[in-house]
């Protein structure tokens, strides 16, 4: 893997360390030999073309799918070798925004956001209500507390999903294609919100996306997956990759194909 450009920001503490990860569906291997580190406070981008396994990698990172091989270590704890109670404890530190929002359709937005709070905190109901309203307001959905997911638009569902993901103030936030299906302004607002969360709360953010504007606007670390060779071919700050990567496929991806034409 001579093409792997190791340009991770130094001097930071690793929060997730992935070693020798192989992802497979049955006997079909999707990606192998994935090795990368996500540092505390990073906005880490998982990039690559459609269908290369970005969302699957995310599912591995949040403990929804067991790796075929390799380890995923959070702060020194290997997820799949840990005891179930330890796994639960780790999961509670994650906040996840799914591609479609994945709101529970039988509950109102307020109930969706309140669920994790009611389950894992001992806060009094009034305080939970206040917190829920605040989280919803944070994503621009103040006043939508009593709406059901079926009554709001796709972009709003996504934002409500983000409010739920942030309910327990997680120190790791995962986003699966946050800007897909959003208009440019909303996508930009979501990007700003991600930066804001990362800077003000110190949250580590992992984003699956192929929106170039987002990648450069928010990312400071990344991994590039190439389905042709079934592994990662680059990692590091996307802006630096754009300047320094020797891999034409990476440059091509980061320049919407313009790079190939210029060279």
């Amino acid at each position: 893997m001579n093409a792997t450009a190791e340009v991770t920001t130094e001097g930071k503490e690793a929060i997730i360390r992935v070693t020798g990860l192989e992802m497979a569906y049955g006997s079909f291997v999707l990606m192998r030999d994935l090795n990368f580190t996500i540092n505390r406070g990073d906005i880490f981008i998982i990039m690559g073309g459609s269908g290369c396994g970005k969302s699957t990698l995310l599912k591995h990172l949040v403990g929804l799918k067991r790796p075929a091989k390799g380890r995923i270590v959070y702060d020194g704890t290997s997820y799949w070798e840990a005891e179930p109670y330890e796994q639960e404890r780790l999961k509670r530190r994650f906040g996840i925004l799914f591609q479609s929002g994945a709101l529970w359709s039988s509950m109102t937005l307020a109930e969706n956001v309140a669920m994790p709070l009611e389950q894992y905190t001992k806060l009094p109901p009034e305080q939970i209500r206040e917190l829920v309203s605040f989280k919803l307001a944070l994503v621009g959905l103040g006043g939508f507390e009593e709406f059901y997911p079926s009554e709001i638009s796709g972009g709003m569902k996504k934002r409500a999903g983000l409010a739920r993901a942030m309910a327990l103030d997680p120190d790791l936030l995962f986003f699966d294609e946050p800007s897909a299906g959003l208009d440019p302004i909303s996508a930009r607002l979501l990007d700003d919100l991600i930066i804001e969360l990362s800077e003000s709360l110190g949250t580590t953010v992992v984003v699956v996306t192929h929106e170039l504007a987002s990648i450069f606007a928010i990312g400071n670390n990344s991994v590039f997956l190439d389905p042709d060779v079934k592994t990662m071919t680059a990692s590091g700050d996307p802006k630096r990759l754009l300047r320094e990567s020797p891999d034409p496929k990476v440059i091509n991806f980061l320049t919407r194909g313009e790079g190939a034409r210029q060279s």
Partner: protein
Amino acid sequence: MTPSEVKIERTPDGALLLTMAGDWKLGNIGPSQEGALSQLAAGETARNIAFATGGIKGWDSGLLIFLARIFETCRREGVEVDKSGLPAGVRKLMELASPENQRTGVTHGGKRQPFLVRIADTALDQVKGFREVVEFIGEATVVFIKMLRGKAVFRRLDLVTTIQETGAQALPIVTLISLLVGMILAFVAAIQLKMFGAQIYVADVVGIGMVRVMGAIMTGIIMSGRTGAAFAAQLGTMQVNEEIDALETLGFSPVEFLVLPRMLALMLMMPLLCVYADLMGVLGGMIVGVGMLDLGVMEYVHESKAALSVTHFMIGLFHCFVFGVLVAISGCLRGIQCERSASAVGYAATSAVVTGIVSIVVATLIITLSCQVLGI
């Protein structure tokens, strides 16, 4: 539309020049096209090939597929293609569709496996499926015990709405089916009993038949088709929308949160529905008895009371309680197992009904045999 035309000429430097003119649109294939293709295929060899397209008036996919065939022939024969004479738009599209731009190494499912391998695969799938069922039942049992100890996490509101959906809202269909089954039992019995002048015993047949087993079976089958399928579709859709993933990542157990309230609701409602179905069945029998066999209402009621005992009633209730668990488990199991597509949700619903009804029939056999052995 002017017909499409193509001429093949050899230029002085040994290259082939394809001069095209006319409307190159689908459905406007001129005879010259096929001619040109066969001429190329017949070994009109050249080092390279070029195009002159100044005479083309209009084009669509018709031109593109013609060019694709020419490019394919050239690639096979090792002839170089000079695309500079083609319209810019055509060049762009041909480039997008060129084999170099397709993903390499795409395979779908691979080669067909040998017969024995397929048998083995099927057997392994069956074993895996059986293990999933056992695991699910185990998990449901653990969660149920957790609930008895007051530690299970689920929304009370979910339980209440499911009770309403599976209980009160099922009454009309249970009424109709039980009444009709009661009448059918009475008709069948009446034909035989009338020959001996013993039509009063129709009340015994209908009463014991309905209360002991038929009321429970009919309720079970109705609930399997109505509620089991609904459970599978609900949970399957939640699977498709990633709602179940969202539960898991927040550390909620889907079995505890989604399956438990559904199972509880059916366990509570099925015996009640069963009692109601028994009553409706007896009423159906009475309608036939009074209306067609000239029995008196009080006479029929007395005979039914004499025939029935608490044992029959309890056996019926026990049946229904078991069926409630079976319907809930098969519905929820198929929903949780559902894959992530619309057709998978349909399959899950169908599969839930089939599993539900099969398990109901098997359970009935086991309970009936057990009663026989125990002499009750």
